[in-house]
């Protein structure tokens, strides 16, 4: 079941944005996000806005999806006019983008290029489920202009994959990573989940070793490791409530995180965001960095979020309604919020503190800076970086990042 969208102000039928928002677009970079709301089956933990064929019913056809996206891109063009610069990053996320044929993904990417233009060294990523890609498809994506691929590996232990309802076999994710490398992808990410009920320390260690091996083979240069979040309304949550599965233990999650930090650092990766490690600066996901650094992006597809010049906006959730609105020439925006200076401050602290580059201390008010001193004394912020005017989380601080954020904010 997809999670619920926040509530906000209504979006005008033509999707138009306040002039003030348009004026500032792209100051901190500009990207495009394409949501592909389809999955072959629904994983029990996942509350992303995605639908299986059965859930979609007859009203929406995957074959028509690229056209819908093209319609929304045209609308974006109308709304933004020439305000937006060429895209620095493009990210296809899901759902499972690779359930669409490479040709369709290519058609969408071409339309993005036509609409906004692509910066010369643009990063173009797609997420992919390990079982949903073939060497041929990967090669086709590469040819179409994709530069990066993110594979949902999650775990190398079959019983963990089973609890997560994953469809791929333990070896498949790394195999797909090799195929991607062989197909010409220089940037390959592996997504991991830790703290799954039934996962033992050894299981996690095995997953990390497999990943380290892939890194050593240059099959992957990036790892995202997420502690399992039990999202409300998911099948996982129901199973835990019924006590079929144990509730994830935060102390275990902390141990797993420390193990990940050790193994990934040992493999030559470095953390650049709380849950992300990369081989070098070039391997970091520039699209996600755009999110964390307060950049602008246009999100297309059902439930996609956009951030344009201080306005956060999100689309209607259901693909049928999304397509229908666009067919009628109307904005699929469901609601939006115009961020106040206070909101922006909260977001800046909340997001930038997650990054290894840290948060410039002069962003904080005097009380916040005092709190930063206390957090430094408590071993949560790095004293060295503190002297250079940056708030940067220590290893222990990374595990308590939300608490630090609360301390730094008024």
């Amino acid at each position, binding site marked *: 079941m997809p999670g619920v969208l926040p509530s906000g102000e209504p979006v005008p039928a033509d999707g138009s944005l306040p002039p003030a928002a348009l004026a500032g677009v792209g100051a901190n970079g500009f990207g495009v996000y394409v949501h592909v709301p389809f999955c072959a089956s629904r994983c029990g933990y996942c509350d992303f806005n995605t639908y299986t064929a059965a859930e979609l019913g007859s009203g929406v056809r995957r074959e028509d999806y690229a056209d819908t996206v093209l319609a929304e891109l045209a609308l974006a063009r109308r709304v933004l006019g020439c305000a937006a610069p060429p895209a620095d990053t493009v990210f296809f996320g899901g759902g499972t983008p690779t359930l669409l044929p490479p040709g369709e993904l290519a058609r969408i990417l071409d339309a993005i290029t036509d609409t906004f233009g692509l910066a010369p060294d643009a990063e173009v990523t797609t997420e992919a489920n390990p079982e949903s890609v073939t060497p041929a498809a990967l090669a086709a994506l590469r040819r179409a202009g994709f530069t990066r691929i993110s594979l949902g590996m999650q775990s190398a232990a079959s019983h963990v994959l089973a609890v997560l309802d994953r469809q791929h076999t333990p070896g498949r994710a790394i195999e797909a990573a090799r195929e991607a490398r062989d197909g010409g992808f220089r940037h390959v990410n592996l997504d991991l989940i830790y703290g799954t009920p039934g996962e033992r320390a050894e299981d996690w260690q095995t997953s990390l070793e497999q990943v380290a091996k892939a890194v050593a083979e240059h099959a992957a240069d990036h790892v995202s490791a997420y502690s399992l*979040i039990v999202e409300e309304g998911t099948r996982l949550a129901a199973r835990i409530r019924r006590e079929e599965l144990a509730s994830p233990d935060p102390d275990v999650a902390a141990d797993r995180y420390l193990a990940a930090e050790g193994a990934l650092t040992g493999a030559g990766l470095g953390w650049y965001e*709380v849950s992300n490690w990369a081989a070098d600066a070039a391997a970091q996901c520039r699209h996600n960095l755009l999110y964390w650094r307060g950049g602008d992006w246009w999100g297309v597809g059902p439930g996609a979020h956009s951030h344009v010049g201080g306005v*956060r906006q999100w689309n209607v959730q259901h693909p049928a309604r999304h397509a229908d609105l666009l067919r009628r020439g109307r904005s699929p925006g469901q609601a939006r919020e115009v961020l106040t200076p206070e*909101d922006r401050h*909260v977001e800046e602290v909340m997001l930038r503190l997650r990054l290894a580059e840290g948060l410039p201390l002069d962003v904080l008010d005097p009380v916040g800076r005092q709190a930063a001193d206390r957090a430094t004394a408590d071993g949560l912020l790095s004293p060295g970086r503190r002297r250079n005017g940056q708030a940067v989380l220590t290893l222990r601080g990374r*595990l308590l990042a*939300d608490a630090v954020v609360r301390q730094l*904010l008024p």
Partner: protein
Amino acid sequence: MLDPGATDPERIRNFCIIAHIDHGKSTLADRMLQLTGVVSARDMRAQYLDRMDIERERGITIKSQAVRMPWTVREGEQKGESYVLNMIDTPGHVDFTYEVSRSLAAGEGAVLLVDAAQGIEAQTLANLYLAMENDLHVIPVLNKIDLPAAQPEKYAEELARLIGCQPEDCLRVSGKTGEGVAHLLDEIVRQMHGPTGQDDAPARAMIFDSVYDVYRGVVTYVRVIDGRIEARDRIKMMSTGAVHELLEIGVISPEPLKSPGLGGGEVGYLITGVKDVRQSKVGDTVTIAAKPAAVALAGYKEPKPMVYSGLYPIDGSDYPNLRDALDRLKLNDAALVYEPETSAALGFGFRCGFLGLLHLEIIRERLEREFDLDLISTAPNVVYRVELEDGAEHVVTNPSEYPAGKVAVVHEPVVRATVLIPNDYVGAVMEICQGRRGALLGMDYLSQDRVEVRYTLPLAEIIYDFFDQLKSRTKGYASLDYETSGEQAGDLVKVDILLQGEQVDAFSAIVHKDKAYQYGVSMTQRLRGLIPRQQFEVPIQAAIGSRVIARENIRAIRKDVLAKCYGGDITRKRKLLEKQKEGKRRMKMVGRVEVPQEAFIAALSSDGDKPTSK
């Protein structure tokens, strides 16, 4: 001749209905209101005189209510003669015994009601003794005779033996069906005498209640003893000498009814326009300014608070509102006392004294409901008198103010408790009382199978779950009454609770030495479950002075970060963060430890020490 203000005292009967809780006083009063025609069938509702929401919800009477009713005798020698009856319905709960004794002083007789399915219970005795102390004529009445389980013969004998009359003297009524009520009214006229006062003496009227009303200001309820008060008189309060114009004088029947005056023996109300009941104090004597009486009537004993508790607004900015609300409730409740206090843990609040736990519960509920306040109340405690070795003496109403010096002796209040039970349960009751440091005073058989057991017990031992325990160990048969009975020296200690070495004043308790460990263990364990993990380890200790008697640990939290934060999460995460920040603002800081309000509330209102309402 029966008009208010002009009634021949010979034609007046002033009486109270007294009984154990729930034996049916208010319901009997309903039938009287109907039978005498002062409330029509259409306007009737059950327990008509229980007017406060809280009384109606809980089905109990908290405040006495006086009503004037006309009655024409139906049978017997006085048949056809008309009288005025002033009836006062009284509360049955032990916390409000004070209210009953005030009401008794306003009449010449009392109807002692006994549930014919329950028989004599503890407050039956207590209220009977009060009536006898006041020299009232008591009419024993068995109620609820309509119940299949009623045993009027059996209980008539019990009651007769208690009062010293014949079983046939016990009247039988049903407040539900109205059976026997007309006869009871006839008997009230026949058996009781009219008020005796000096008609021509300077006016003296006893204030037996004083109520603040938003619309009318202070309404003062009086019983005229000597002389009379006219509507045009200026009245004088004898304690202060203050003189007031009378704006209105009248009787309650059962709504206020203006009258030209109040004559000797009559019960009614006065309105003077004063805004503060302290200017119109219960127990004071009203006289006429132009022709004042020389000597005041004997007043009432001031009610003394039995238990104390700290009341704190959850939202600190509500403190002034809490003060106003207490001032307001105090207007109608002489027994409520309070003074400001500060708690490091709970902020600004008031230490309040109550007649008992029901009283506490009701005041708290009224504050929350009528004044829209959210409150925390600390665990109720009694008053201790602590003598130090250096000779200094401290009266402690708040355990955290227990003196630091070398203690010579601690005195605690004791009560004389009366428990009534079928004789099968004597053993169980003695066991419970023994376990609570009780000293047996005596035991009497009220009938073959009903026993009265009397104990001296520390008040502190009975304010928590004593009654619940009595009830559960006696299949619900036990009834309990108690009255203060001085104080005794006790082997008492103060147990402090410390969070990370910082004392939490709200959790300090004065307990008997033998129960200190138990208190320490249960409190530290409870807090461990209630206080969220912090960024550092938090030891929770219970200590007597510097000696730690129990310890728990809250392990440091190691992970507090949302793993994933992609573009679509930002709004959601920001809103979550703002909610968390809001939650943090509502945390109370104990040293560096953040304690949620809920933890205080939960820790202070454990199941075990829930006050009992009945």
